């Protein structure tokens, strides 16, 4: 049995999942902090 398709699937899943959640967390943080800073400036 060729193991490489299994290896590639495992790595794509891990790196894709980690990268996706890292990007989502960063975008959410940036959006929330930008909104908070804008409100502080308006005050």
């Amino acid at each position: 049995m060729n193991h490489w398709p299994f290896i590639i699937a495992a790595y794509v899943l891990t790196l894709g999942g980690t990268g996706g959640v890292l990007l989502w967390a960063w975008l959410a943080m940036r959006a929330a902090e930008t909104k908070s800073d804008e409100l502080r400036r308006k005050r």
Partner: protein
Amino acid sequence: MHAFANPTRFLSIAKPLTPWLAYGGIVLIAIGVAAGLFFTPPDYLQGESVRILYVHVPAAWLGMGGWTGLAIASLMQIVWRHPLAGVSARAIAVPGALFTAICLATGSIWGRPTWGTWWEWDGRLTSMLILLFLYFGYIALANASEERTTVSRATAIFGLIGAVNIPIINRSVVWWKSLHQGPSITLKGSTIDMAILWPLGFTVLGFSLVFGAIVLMRMRAILAEARVEARMRRLAEA
């Protein structure tokens, strides 16, 4: 620990630390993955599929470590009412669930060419699946609360009780006979040859740093959203 109880003081440390953790983690993962895929020999029994070890083991470590951190935060909330305990527990839940799911998926992918099956209802796999459901339950309970910067007492107790599963996962391969191999890396040493083992250090540390970066980003987002909500409330009352 209470020195960091002030969110302003926490943010003064978290803001510069976040990119260091993220970039440092990405570099270490890249080194570990490249080495694991191209510079280590195949295992004499498992063949090439042993390379899945370099992503599976960090995912398992972070799935279990995540809940341990969540349980400690829950304890700090219940006993000391630490103001950042609920925020950190909330922030850990999503990446913890992610790495538990990755652990289960990569284990299943590894199992097909190695064991000849995608899944086996043995102690290790079943207790890890229970951990994933515990994370889902915790996320649902935490989101049910309207208060963003903390979790309810019931949610914190759930986080503490769920920690009972962690030693069960750890000892499952010793307590019950299963397809899953026994512990390969213990405090006494490793049964894996150093020629195969060394990239694992890079991926374990790299994914741990990225996990830390995600937790800090989520904590910062939760605190910023709470500041916005508080300000909007004050504006509405004025």
